[in-house]
């Protein structure tokens, strides 16, 4: 099992979601993070100009079976792509085990319906 952590543009979220849907990845979690980096936004406040040091981004966290890792990464990468600076990154981390709370199933099987297949 792999955990895929994708930090993407907020505005690309809907497209990524659709892309995941179309490869039968229907389960994932996401939350807002702030990305610090070179991409900045100029702001003003009561006459003081400043750069935000951060940009709001969406982090998608998703655990998939090993065999689905590549296609998931590819789907996200393509959907989140704009070509401009600030498209974000995807990280892959190894997961040891998964438990589905409702059934107490463990291992790959806990992800099955998460990927909607046998």
């Amino acid at each position, binding site marked *: 099992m792999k955990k895929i952590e994708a930090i993407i543009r907020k505005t690309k979220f809907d497209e990524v979601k659709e892309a995941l849907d179309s490869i039968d990845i229907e389960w994932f979690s996401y939350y807002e993070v702030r990305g610090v980096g070179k991409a900045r936004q100029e*702001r*003003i*406040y*009561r*006459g*003081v*100009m400043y750069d935000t040091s951060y940009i709001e981004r969406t982090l998608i966290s998703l655990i998939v079976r090993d065999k689905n890792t590549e296609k998931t990464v590819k789907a996200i990468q393509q959907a989140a792509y704009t070509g401009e600076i600030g498209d974000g990154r995807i990280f892959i981390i190894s997961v040891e085990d998964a438990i589905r709370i409702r059934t107490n199933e463990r291992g790959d099987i806990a992800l099955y319906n998460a990927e909607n297949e046998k």
Partner: protein
Amino acid sequence: MEETITGLQIGLDNMWLLIAGFLVMFMQPGFALVEAGFTRSKNTSNILMKNFMDFAIGSILYWVIGFTLMYGDTVGGFIGIPDLFFMSDGVGENYADYSDLFFQTVFCATAATIVSGAMAERTEFKAYLIFTIVISVFIYPISGHWTWGGGWLSELGFHDFAGSSIVHSVGAWVGLAGAAMIGPRIGKYNKKGKPNAIPGHNLLLGALGVFILWFGWFGFNPGSQLAASGVENAVAIGHIAVTTNLAAAAGAIAAMCVSWCRFKRPELSLTLNGALAGLVAITAGANVVDPVGAVLIGAMAGIILPFAVEFFDRILKVDDPVGAISVHGVSGAFGTLMVGLFSTEKGLFYGGGWHQLGVQAIGVLVFFVWAFGTGLLLFYILKKAKILRVSRRVEEEGLDIYEHGETAYN
């Protein structure tokens, strides 16, 4: 029948005064929203608490002593003879004594509340209570006596219709003393002394506050005519409503244009402050300038505002989180001066010569010296007593948790 007619006239004027007073009272949440919106969420409970308490304490103390100190029989034009716990079911020429007390009370509370904005986010709550008391029973009523109480400044011919100086500048100059004495918030200036922006946490609420203030100002200015009956008063309050509204509008537009030119973007926070600057500036002359004068005064106030904010921020390095000093102090002084130019009766531009301008300048100066002076003394004592500023940790983690044990958002 004569009597019935007098009763009607008093009924009318009295009602006007009360309704105007209600509107001025409603400026309190306006101030609270502006202050809370323009500061960080970790200090919101503190700011609300302060605004509540300044109105509550001011209401009580102004009744206990402030009112008679300001409006009592004068002692040489400098102070009124106080009469504790004002109580009178009498009636004056236009309104009941109690209506008068009420109307004056809400003005006093306005002055007190301005101070808190300039010192937000780092002042101990105890210190805040103390200076609210001092302002309500001492600083405001005494200088108020000099003008509205019939004291020496009014003798000179000083014109400050509804309180650009008497109310707004006084509050702001005390705030300036306080903000200078207490020092900037942690993180406001970087190591090289350059100011950082510390954006307010909710500009929507700030904007709502400004709208409420704008609304309340129709009690503040037209209400200061103190009468509504008779053709003359009717025309006057209509006139004042129009000049007040035009100046506010012009201030907002001017400030927006300035921010658009300088920063390439029309900025909300400055625009909001611009509207307030226009309102404060027109307050001194709302009844004696014509609409054109009102638009010009408002527009200039709106133009000056961003520069005033920068001046305090960058040059003097006085950290005023909500811009109270610029909005109420600078604009108030400016508006007071402008009466000398734009008054259709005595203004320089309308052939009235230099006299009025001179008197206005004296007034502006007097109020600055009085309010800033007493303010410095007051805050110096509080500072020495070590109850002026919260500790570093409290400031960093927020006054809400440590001073009040209660966060605003849960």
